[in-house]
């Protein structure tokens, strides 16, 4: 018998949430992670718990996102009770703002389709209505879309809360354990990290963009690629923004985050002034009072992107017991991963509901 029931590979938000859930289901878990310097979307995300733009083209994903959004408050409360750490989850509803009629029409069209597909609640607001909820919008804002299900949290604190809870739940968190090889021997996975090994009958790959390589070792096709996003944050300001906007939000600590970009830049996670400058420019047009705040940091991080932007959840056919969980919405989906996905993986494995998330969808002939 191995020391662990599960080896979860990747200690970011996805892996930590799943490890937390597995431990909650009574499993003995080892969580392998890289070290201090790694590509970590968990440290670079925008911290939205977001519903309004998710899942057009895949109703299962829209449903999954909404389930996570619904589970988030309870998840946050459980973490608070367990660790004393408040991850500042709020669900006041969120906005996307348009700086032109054209932008507004396109947003409306997209949301209308999502509404028709998945019954998404949303509302298009004109300037006058917007101003009642967002009094500081600039004159260029022509309108916006509001979805009452949207919210946000403090994602770095979520990482700390999860890691604190993992310690309490007896999970063996193993940082500086980058994985270079996985073997499957007699029903046991042997995970190699340098000269060290961790053995477990079941494994979950949650290594973000690292899942592509790890997947190959256990017969899983994980076609993910890095997509760069850049973010700007200001010094702490007194609260003035009561709702998250898809590209602007004020953290519970006071800093205003502005995002983000979508760039195909491989594994280059450097920032560029032209991009962060554009982000700042759009933000100031939306909220002119941001202009005088000082920027204290910028950063770039790499999203974990599939071709269609939707997650992959799958168990290997050739290596039963090897699962992959990968997505670019580790914050939004944290509650679902912890409370819904992990118990399934801990029990009998993924149910038929997850068939849609299989990477096989990328190989279906378009001529069919």
């Amino acid at each position, binding site marked *: 018998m191995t020391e662990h029931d599960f080896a979860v590979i990747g200690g970011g938000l996805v892996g930590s949430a799943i490890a937390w859930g597995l431990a909650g289901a009574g499993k003995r878990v080892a969580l392998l992670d890289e070290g201090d310097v790694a590509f970590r979307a968990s440290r670079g995300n925008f911290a939205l718990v977001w519903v309004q733009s998710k899942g057009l083209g895949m109703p299962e994903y829209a449903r999954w996102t909404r389930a996570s959004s619904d589970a988030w408050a309870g998840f946050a409360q459980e973490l608070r009770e367990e660790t004393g750490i408040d991850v500042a989850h709020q669900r006041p509803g969120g906005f996307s703002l348009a700086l032109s009629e054209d932008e507004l029409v396109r947003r409306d069209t997209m949301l209308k389709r999502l509404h028709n597909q998945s019954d998404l609640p949303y509302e298009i607001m004109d300037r006058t209505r917007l101003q009642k909820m967002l009094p*500081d919008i600039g004159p260029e804002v022509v309108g916006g879309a509001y979805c009452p299900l949207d919210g946000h949290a403090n994602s770095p604190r979520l990482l700390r809360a999860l890691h604190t809870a993992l310690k309490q739940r007896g999970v063996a968190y193993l940082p500086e354990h980058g994985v270079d090889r996985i073997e499957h021997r007699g029903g046991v996975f042997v995970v190699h990290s340098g000269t060290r090994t961790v053995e477990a009958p079941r494994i979950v790959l949650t290594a973000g963009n690292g899942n592509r390589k790890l997947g190959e070792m256990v017969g899983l096709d994980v076609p993910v690629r890095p997509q760069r996003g850049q973010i700007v944050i200001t*010094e*702490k*300001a*007194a609260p*003035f923004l009561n709702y998250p906007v898809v590209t602007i939000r004020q953290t519970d*600590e*006071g800093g*205003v985050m502005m995002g983000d970009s979508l760039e195909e830049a491989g594994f280059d996670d450097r920032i560029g002034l032209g991009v962060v400058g554009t982000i700042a420019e759009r933000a100031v047009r939306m909220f002119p*009072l*941001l202009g*005088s*705040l*000082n920027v204290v940091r910028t950063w770039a991080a790499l999203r974990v992107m599939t071709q269609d932007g939707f997650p992959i959840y799958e168990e290997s056919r050739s290596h039963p017991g090897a699962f992959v969980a990968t997505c670019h919405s580790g914050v939004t989906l944290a509650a679902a991963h912890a409370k819904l996905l992990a118990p399934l993986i801990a029990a009998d494995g993924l149910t038929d509901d997850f068939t849609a998330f299989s990477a096989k969808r990328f190989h279906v002939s378009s001529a069919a």
Partner: protein
Amino acid sequence: MFHRLPDLADAALVTLTIDSEVITARPSDTVAAALLAAGHAACRETAVSSTPRGPYCLMGVCFDCLVTIDGVGNRQGCLVRVREGMHVETQRGKRVAGR
């Protein structure tokens, strides 16, 4: 507490205000130097815990001498020279966006 040396080059002093207090300073002073010369060891309460802080390094590194200068918050007092008629305000907690 800081005091001026007795033998300094002649200079036409400038007048500025710190909150409601009117003070004079030498034109080559930074705001942080003028604050210390006027007996203010503290210039703000922090944005995190509202505890008092004052100028610490005077060379632009520590960001503890943050003050509101002519309506603009969180400026480094040690990097800005005084000007005639300048309004300096000490800060309480987080800066207010838009000023």
